[in-house]
C-alpha cells in the first residue's frame, strides 16, 4: 500500500509532535525504508524545531551517523507496521519511563515540549523547569522534571487550568486533584476502534432532480414505517379511503399537514406511498398535546375509527418510531474516554483561543490520559459569507487560512488521540444536509494528527459505543416550532430528545433545514445510537432519553453581536468528557 505511506509518515511525525513540509514527507516516502528514514530525521532535527523541512530530511539522509543496532532493528520493524504499530513504539518508550532509555530523548521532547511552549499556566511551574517561554529550550530536560512539572500543573487546581464544572450527570468524572501522579499519556492504540456508518462523503449521487427528492422521502417512509408497522395494523391510505364508515383503522404515514379546526381540534393529514388521509385528534384526548410536538414530514402511526362517512379518522392513539424504553446502550470494554466538542469557530474575532489551548493542554495531563478520542460536531471555522458583512467581524478573512489556523490548534492536542470531525453550517461545504465531509483541499490543510473526516451526520462507533454525530441545524427549527417546555435554547438536549423520538435528525422539509436529495435518507436514525452528539446552538446541555445520552456540547466562541441581539448567551469553552465504558459524562470548563 505505497500510497498510504505519506499518511503514515504524517501520522508518525505528528505523533512525535512535528509538522512536516509536504516536500519533506515526499522525500521520506521516496526512500527505500521510510520508517527508518523517519527515525533518522527525527533524531537529526533540532529539538526545538516544530516543522520538519525537506532540508532537514536531506541533512538527515546525508548524515551518516550510525545508529545503534537495537534501534535499527526496531525501526526496521516499523517500516511495515501500521499506524498502530508505529504508535506502539511510543507506548513502549513512554511506558519505559523511569528507566533511562537512551533513545527516548526525541520522544520526550515531542509532546511535552509543545505542552510547555503553549501552556499559559506555566508561570507557576516549578523553577527547575527553568525555561521561560522562549521557543528554544534545553533539549535534555529530564523526564523526572517533566513529570514534576506536569503534576504541578494538574494539581494547581483553581488556576486557569481545567476545573471541573458542577453537576455532570454521573459524577463519575475526575477532578484535577484526582489526577494520578502517573506518567504522561499511556495509550494503547491497538485497543482502539472507530468505525463510521451513514456517511454521505463521496457518496453524493443526487443531481437535484425531482425524482431524487421523491426517492429520499420514500426511503424515509420505508425506514421509519418499518419501526412502526409492528405496533399498528397499518393500511395504505387508498385502502382506508375505500373502507366503510365506523370501522377501525390504522395508518403509518409522514405528517403532511397539521391544521387546527374551528372548534379547536387538530386535523393531521398523513401521507403514505399511496396517498393521504386526514386524521382528527380531538382536543380533549389525553394525547392531544402530542400534536404540539409534531413536525411536518416526520413519520408517525395512528389508530382510530373512521367517521360515519369514512372521510376522516378519529384518532385513538398515536405512535412515534421512538427509542425503545428497554433500550440498553452499548459500552466499551475498557476504561477509555472521548471528548465531545463542537463549534470552534476559528477565524472569528470571538474565537476563544485561550480556552482551547487550556483544553489542549489539559489533554496532555495524566488526568486526561484516558481521553483517547476527540469528536468534533462541526463548525471548525467561522467560515466566509455565512451572514452579510461577515468579513468585518472576521479575525482571519481567508477561509483557507482559517482552516490552517484551526489545524494549528488541532495540533495542540496530543498526537496520539483519535480525532473525528464532521462539518457544520459555517464550514466550507454545502449547507444542504446531509453534508459531505471536507474536500481534498481542506483535508490537506487539516492533515494534523490524521483526523478522520466524515459527513454530517455520521454514526460513529467508538469501541462499540454508537455515537451519532450531527451538527444540529434542525435544532433551531425544533426549538421554534415546539412549545418552550419541550424544546428551548436553554435545554438543547430536550430538543434532541424530540429528534430521537422521531428517529430523524431533521424531519421538517421546507423550513429552516435544507435538504439535498440523495438516493437514500441519510438523516434517518436507522439504528438507535448510544450517544447523540450535536452542537450548533452554542449551548451546553445533556441528559438521557430512554437511556440514550444526548449531548449538545457548547462552543469555543464568545458571544457574538448577533447572539447578543437575540439574547443567546453561549456556553463557551466546555468539553464534555464521556466515559465510553459507563456512558457517564463529566463536563470540564476551560474558559
Amino acid at each position: 500500500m505505497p500510497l498510504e505511506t505519506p499518511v503514515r509518515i504524517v501520522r508518525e511525525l505528528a505523533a512525535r509532535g512535528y509538522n512536516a513540509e509536504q516536500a519533506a514527507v515526499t522525500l521520506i516516502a521516496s526512500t527505500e525504508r521510510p520508517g527508518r528514514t523517519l527515525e533518522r530525521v527525527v533524531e537529526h532535527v533540532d529539538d526545538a524545531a516544530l516543522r520538519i523541512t525537506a532540508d532537514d530530511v536531506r541533512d538527515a539522509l546525508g548524515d551518516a551517523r550510525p545508529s545503534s543496532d537495537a534501534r535499527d532493528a526496531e525501526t526496521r520493524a516499523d517500516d511495515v507496521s501500521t499506524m498502530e504499530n508505529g504508535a506502539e513504539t511510543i507506548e513502549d518508550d513512554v511506558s519505559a519511563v523511569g528507566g533511562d532509555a537512551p533513545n527516548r530523548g526525541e520522544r520526550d521532547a515531542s509532546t511535552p515540549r509543545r505542552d510547555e511552549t503553549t501552556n499559559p499556566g506555566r508561570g507557576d511551574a516549578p523553577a527547575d523547569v527553568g525555561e521561560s517561554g522562549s521557543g528554544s529550550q534545553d533539549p535534555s530536560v529530564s523526564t523526572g522534571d517533566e513529570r514534576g512539572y506536569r503534576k504541578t500543573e494538574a494539581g494547581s487546581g483553581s488556576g486557569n487550568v481545567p476545573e471541573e464544572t458542577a453537576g455532570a450527570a454521573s459524577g463519575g468524572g475526575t477532578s484535577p486533584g484526582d489526577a494520578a501522579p502517573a506518567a504522561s499519556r499511556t495509550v494503547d492504540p491497538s485497543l482502539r476502534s472507530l468505525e463510521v456508518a451513514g456517511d454521505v462523503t463521496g457518496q453524493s449521487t443526487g443531481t437535484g432532480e425531482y425524482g431524487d427528492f421523491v426517492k429520499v422521502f420514500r426511503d424515509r417512509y420505508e425506514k421509519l414505517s418499518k419501526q412502526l408497522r409492528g405496533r399498528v395494523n397499518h393500511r395504505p391510505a387508498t385502502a382506508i379511503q375505500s373502507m366503510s364508515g365506523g370501522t377501525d383503522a390504522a395508518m403509518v404515514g409522514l405528517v403532511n399537514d397539521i391544521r387546527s379546526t374551528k372548534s379547536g381540534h387538530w386535523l393531521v393529514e398523513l401521507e403514505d406511498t399511496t396517498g393521504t388521509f386526514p386524521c382528527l385528534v380531538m382536543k380533549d384526548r389525553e394525547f392531544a398535546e402530542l400534536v404540539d410536538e409534531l413536525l411536518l414530514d416526520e413519520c408517525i402511526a395512528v389508530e382510530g375509527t373512521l367517521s360515519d362517512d369514512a372521510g376522516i379518522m378519529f384518532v385513538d392513539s398515536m405512535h412515534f418510531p421512538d427509542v425503545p424504553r428497554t433500550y440498553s446502550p452499548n459500552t466499551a470494554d475498557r476504561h477509555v474516554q472521548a471528548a465531545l466538542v463542537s463549534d470552534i469557530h476559528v477565524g472569528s474575532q470571538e474565537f476563544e483561543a485561550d480556552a482551547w489551548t487550556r483544553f489542549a493542554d489539559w489533554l496532555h495531563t495524566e488526568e486526561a490520559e484516558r481521553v483517547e478520542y476527540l469528536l468534533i460536531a462541526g463548525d471548525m471555522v467561522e467560515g466566509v459569507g455565512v451572514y452579510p458583512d461577515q468579513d468585518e467581524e472576521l479575525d482571519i478573512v481567508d477561509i483557507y487560512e482559517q482552516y490552517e489556523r484551526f489545524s494549528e490548534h488541532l495540533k495542540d492536542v496530543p498526537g496520539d488521540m483519535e480525532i473525528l470531525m464532521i462539518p457544520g453550517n459555517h464550514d466550507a461545504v454545502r449547507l444542504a444536509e446531509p453534508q459531505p465531509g471536507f474536500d481534498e483541499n481542506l483535508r490537506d490543510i487539516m492533515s494534523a494528527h490524521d483526523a478522520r473526516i466524515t459527513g454530517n451526520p455520521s454514526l460513529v462507533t467508538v469501541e462499540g459505543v454508537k455515537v451519532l454525530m450531527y451538527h444540529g441545524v434542525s435544532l433551531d427549527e425544533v426549538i421554534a416550532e415546539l412549545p418552550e417546555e419541550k424544546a428551548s435554547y436553554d435545554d438543547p438536549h430536550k430538543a434532541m430528545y424530540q429528534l430521537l423520538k422521531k428517529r430523524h435528525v431533521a424531519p421538517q422539509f421546507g423550513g429552516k433545514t435544507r435538504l439535498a436529495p440523495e438516493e437514500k435518507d441519510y438523516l434517518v436514525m436507522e439504528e438507535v445510537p448510544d450517544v447523540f452528539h450535536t452542537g450548533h446552538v452554542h449551548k451546553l446541555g445533556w441528559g438521557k432519553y430512554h437511556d440514550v445520552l444526548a449531548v449538545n456540547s457548547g462552543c469555543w466562541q464568545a458571544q457574538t453581536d448577533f447572539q447578543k441581539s437575540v439574547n443567546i448567551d453561549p456556553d463557551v469553552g466546555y468539553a464534555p468528557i464521556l466515559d465510553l465504558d459507563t456512558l457517564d459524562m463529566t463536563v470540564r470548563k476551560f474558559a
Partner: protein
Amino acid sequence: MREEDERYFERIESRLDEAFDRAERAKGMGYDPEPEVEIPVAKDMADRVENILGIPGVAERVRELEGEMSREEAALELVTDFVEGTVGDYDGRAGKVEGAVRTAVALLTEGVVAAPIEGIDRVEILENDDGTEFVNVYYAGPIRSAGGTAQALSVLVADYARSLLGIDEYDARTVETERYAEEISLYDKETGLQYSPKDKETKFIAEHMPIMLDGEATGDEEVSGFRDLERVDTNSARGGMCLVLAEGIALKAPKIQRYTRGLDEVDWPWLQDLIDGTIGKDEADAETADAENTAGGEDEESAADTESGDGGEESDGETETPDGADDEPAGPPRLDPSTKFLRDLIAGRPVFGHPSAEGGFRLRYGRARNHGFATAGVHPATMHLVDDFLATGTQIKTERPGKAAGVIPVDSIEGPTVRLANGDVRRIDDPEEALEVRNGVEKILDLGEYLVNFGEFVENNHPLAPASYVYEWWVQDFEAAGAPVQALEDDPGIDLERPTPAEAEEWATEYDCPLHPEYTYLWHDVSVAQFEELADAVADGRLVGREADGGLAETGDGTPSSDAKKAGDGRVDDDRVLELANTETVAETLEGLLVEHTQSGEAIRVPEWRLLVRSLGYIVEEGGSTSAVDEGEPESDLDAGQSASDVDAGASPPTLDRTWEPADLSPAAREWDGGASAVKAVNEVAPFEVRERAPTRIGNRMGRPEKSESRDLSPAVHTLFPIGEAGGSQRDVGEAARGRDEQGRRGVVDVRVGDRVCPDCDAHTYRTTCPDCGTHTEPHYECEECGRVVEPDESGRVHCDRCDRDVTSPDWFSIDVGEEYRRALETVGERESAYEILKGVKGLTSADKTPEPMEKGVLRAKNGVTSFKDGTVRYDMTDLPVTAVRPSELDVTAADFRELGYETDVDGEPLKFDDQLVELKVQDIVLSDGAAEHMLKTADFVDDLLEQYYGLPPFYEVDEREDLVGELVFGMAPHTSAAVVGRVVGFTSAAVGYAHPYFHAAKRRNCDGDEDCVMLLMDGLLNFSKQYLPDKRGGQMDAPLVMSSRIDPSEIDDEAHNMDIVRQYPREFYEATLELDDPEAVEDLIQLGEDTLGTDEEYRGFDHTHDTSDIALGPDLSAYKTLGSMMDKMDAQLELSRKLRAVDETDVAERVIEYHFLPDLIGNLRAFSRQETRCLDCDEKYRRMPLTGDCRECGGRVNLTVHQGSVNKYMDTAIHVAEEFGCREYTKQRLEVLEKSLESVFENDKNKQSGFADFM
C-alpha cells in the same frame, strides 16, 4: 384668492360638474353595483376626512374647529365630541375610542392616505391582571402611510379618550414588555425602521404606555423568546405596532409632549426622559459614576479622554473652517463623504460616481423650471455620455442632500468633460455633440454639473455643501466689487456669462473680484506638486499659431463653442495656442483641471491658455518688445496664412514670463489640504483671486428606471366577471363560454358571487339589474345561522345581532357564462371579432363579490384597455415637477394655452408665441406620449360605453391627442385613498408625468422616482365601485374613495412647501455654503413655497434660477429599459464603470457580486433545498414532494419549482466578473465555496474523476 385663480378652479369644476351630470345619469340606470357615482367630491380637507371615514358630521365639526386651532388641537378636541356622542354614532366605549383615533389620524394626514381606515384595525377594551379595564389599539401595516407624528398622536388621542371614558391604564406584564423589545428589534432587522430604539427605550415606553399597542402580524419571521403570550395573539412582528412605538412615540416624543402639556386629563411625564435621551444611557452613566470610585473607573475615564483628544485632532486636521485661533486652517471646508447610497447596488444599475470622488457630478445650486422637490438636474449631454443610462425621470440614489432624486434634464449648466481616444480633452455642452463623440470617448473625466435647489437642503435638513464658483455667484461678487454690471449686461458686444479671456483678465484685475468661473480651473483637484510641474512645463512650452493645429480648428467649426466665438474677437492671444510637451503628468494635470486641449504626438495644445498661464503665475508680454528670451524662437511659427482680421499679423508673438520661484510658495500653500489642493498656491502666484471651482462632488448611482406604462393586473383583466378555472390560465371568457364542465354542461361555471335581490319582484340574482323586470338590485344579506335577513347599518357593517356574527351576501351560483357573454355582446352591439380576447377573473375578492357587468369588459377589450381591481383604467408614470412650460415643448400652441386660460408669460408679457415661457397652474399636468395614447383609447372606451351601454351621448369624442387638452383626469397615488383632479395641458416625449409640484404633493408624492397613476375622469366616475375592492388589509388603498376638486396649498404634503421659488440666490447664501452652515441660517434670504401660503400669491410666483431649453432633453428611455437581458445591462454597467473617472470599477464589481449575485445564488440555493413542487398538468402545489411521485389530484407529472438552471444561472458570470475586476479574495472565496456547494448538490460523486494524486 386672486380672481384669476378662482376662475381657473371654476373652469375645472364646471367641466367636472358636466362629467358628473352625465355620469349620474348613466349610473342612475342601475346597471352598476350602486345607482350613483361612488367618488364623492371633496372641496376641502374636512370633506375628505368625512368621506374617507364615512362618519357623518365630522366635516362640519372639523371646519368649525379649523378656524380656531391647529389641526392637532382639533384632533384632540374632537375626542370630546366622540366621547359625548355628538359626533359619530357609537354606542360602545371601544367604538368611541376607535372613532376618535381614526378621525385624528385622518385629520393629521389631510384625509388623503389610507392609514385611518387601513392602518387601524380596531380598538378593544380588555382586562388588566387586577381586573381593571384598559384600551387596546390594534394597528395594521398601512399605518405607515400616516407618518410618525400622526401615529404618535393617535396613541395620545386614544389615551385622552380613555381618560375621558374613565377606563384604567394598561398595566403591561413583564413578558409583554420584553416582547415589545424583542419584537421591535426583529422588525427593525427584517423590515427596517427609520429610528431603532434601544431595548431599554422600548421597554421604558412599554412600561409607561397607558394604553396597549397591539396589531396584526405583518411578517413571517417570529420572535424566539416571549412567544405565545396570552394577550398577544401572534408570534410574528406586528408591523403597525412597531411603527407606532418606534417611529411614532420614540421618535416624536417632543411633538407629543407639546400636546400632553395642554391636556389636564392626560399626563405623560415619562416623555421627558425619552426626550432627554437618558433612557438606555442612564444605566451606563450610573455605572461609570460607580466605577469612578473604583480602580477601573480611571481607566475608563482616561480612555474617554484619549478618545476625545483624538477626535479633536481629527477635526483640526481634516475638516472645518478657520476659527480665528490659528492663522490658517490646513484644508478647505468639506462635508464628509457618505457611502450609504452605494448600498444594495444591483446588477445593471450603474454607479456614476463614488462618494465625493473627483470626476463626479459637481454641485451647483439652483432650481430649474422642471426641478425641485427631490429631483436632480443633469446636463442632457451627460445623460447620453453615460450610455443613456440616465433619462428624464430616472431615479438616482444620491450621496446628498437626500437619499434619492428623479433626474431632470437641464442644459443651462455645464456639461461633461471627456477624453477622446485620440487624447483630446473636450467639454461637451451639446447633447448632439455628445452623441457624435460618444463612441470615441475613452474616459469621462467629469460628469458636469449637478443642479440641486436650496429647498432640497432645507427639506433634508442637510448642512450646506460648499458651492461651485459659478456665474450667478460671480456676477454678484462682480457687482459688489463695484463693476457696472447693468451696463455690461446691456452692452451687446459683451457676454457677461462667457467673456473673452482678455475681458475676464481685465475684470479680475481691474476690479477686486475673483476670476470669472469660465476660466477658473479645478485647482483644488490637483496637488501642489502637479501645479509646480505644470508651471515648469509652461516654462518649456511655446505659443504657436492656431492654424498649425488642424484638429482644433475643427473643434471650433463643429460647434458654436466658446472657442469659436472668442476666436472671432480678434484678440491677439486667440490666434495662438499654448504648446506643451506631451507628458503623462502634464496631461493628467490638465485633465484634472478640466482644461480643454488636443494632443498630437509630442505636443499638447491648449487653446484657452491665457488665464491658465496667468493662474500659474506667468506674465504675458505682448509681442514686439521682447528681446532676450532664454528659449528658442516661437516667432518662426507665425506665417502669412493668418486670417485677415488678425491685425497684429506681422508682430512678434507674446512671450510668457514666470513671476515666481518654487521658494516663493509659502509653507501654508504647500501644506494646504496636505498638499493635495493647489488652490492656495495658485492664489499666491496669480495676479487675481481664484476661487474653488467645484469643491463639492456628489456621488450617485442609478436607482429605478423611469416609468410610463399602463397598469395591468397580472394576468390582464378586461372585465371583473368571475369565470373560475374555465377560462384557462388566460382567463379567456370566450373559452369559458364554449367549454364544458365535469357534468358536461357547456359554458356553465360554479363561482361564488354576491346574492342580490330585486326590490320590486323579490327575484334573486347575482346581477346588478333584475333579470325579470330590469330594476336595480340590492345585496341580500341572510344570516347563515338563523336565516334572518339583515340590513347594513350606517357604517356599512352587516351584523346579525341574534347570532352575533357578521353576515355576507356571497353564495355559490352556477353561472351560464355562455349566455352571459352572448347577452353582453348583444347589449352593446358588438361581435366577438371586434377584439382578440376578453379576459375575466378567476373569482372575486370583494366582500359582497358583486360581478361587473360583462358589457364593460367587451368594450374595454374592443378599445384595447384593461381594468384595475377597482374597475378603472389606469396609466402609471414617474412623477416630475414643472413650474413653467413652453407650449411648443408640450406639442401644443400658444392658442391652445390661451384657450386654457393662460394669458401671459412668466414676465407678464401677453402670450403670443409658442415658445414663450408660461407659469404652470397647480392642477395642470403634462402627459407622456404613452399616457396620451392610452387616454385616447380610454376616452373611446368611455364614449362607447356611454353610447352602446348606457344609451347616452358620448362625452369625449376625441380623434387625436390634441383633443385631450383641457380634459380632466384623476391623479392617484398608491397608499392613498383620495384622487386629485388634474387637467391635461400638453404632452412630452419623456416617459414621465410632469405636473406642478403642488399637484404631486396633493397626492402625497414627491418626485424622487415615485410613480403613480392617472385615470380619465369619466372612466373613474362611471366604472369605479367600492363593491369591487378586495376585502382584505390594504384593499382600500390605491382606490379613489374621494376626490379633491381643487388643491389648497395648505393641505398638501408640506415637503413641497420647502421648494424655493426665486430667480436668484443671494451672494450671502453662496458664502454661507463655504461655512457649511445649516440651511436655516439662510432660509430667510430665499423665498420658499411656504412663505406664500395662505396669501393671494400661493398659486403663483414659482420662479426658477435656471432655464432649460426643453423639459424632455436627453434620451427618452434609460438604457436600463432598452437593453435586453440582465447580462447585457450588467455588461453595460461595468463597461461604464471603467469609463468614468469618478468610479472605482473594482468596487462596483465587488458590490454587484456582493449585493446581487451572491444573494441571488445563496437565495436560490436555499430555495432549491426547501422548495415546493407543482403539478405540470393541473397546477396543484405541494409543499413537499408527494410520496406517490405523481400528482395526488390528477395523477399528472409533478416537478420542481426551482431547478438547477435557476440556481446557478449567475455562477459563471460572477466568477468571471470577480476575476476580471480583481475582486477581493474574500469575495472570490465565497464564490468558490458556493460553486463547490452547487457541484455537491447537482453532481454525482460517482461520475466524477477523482484520484489519490491530489492527496498530498
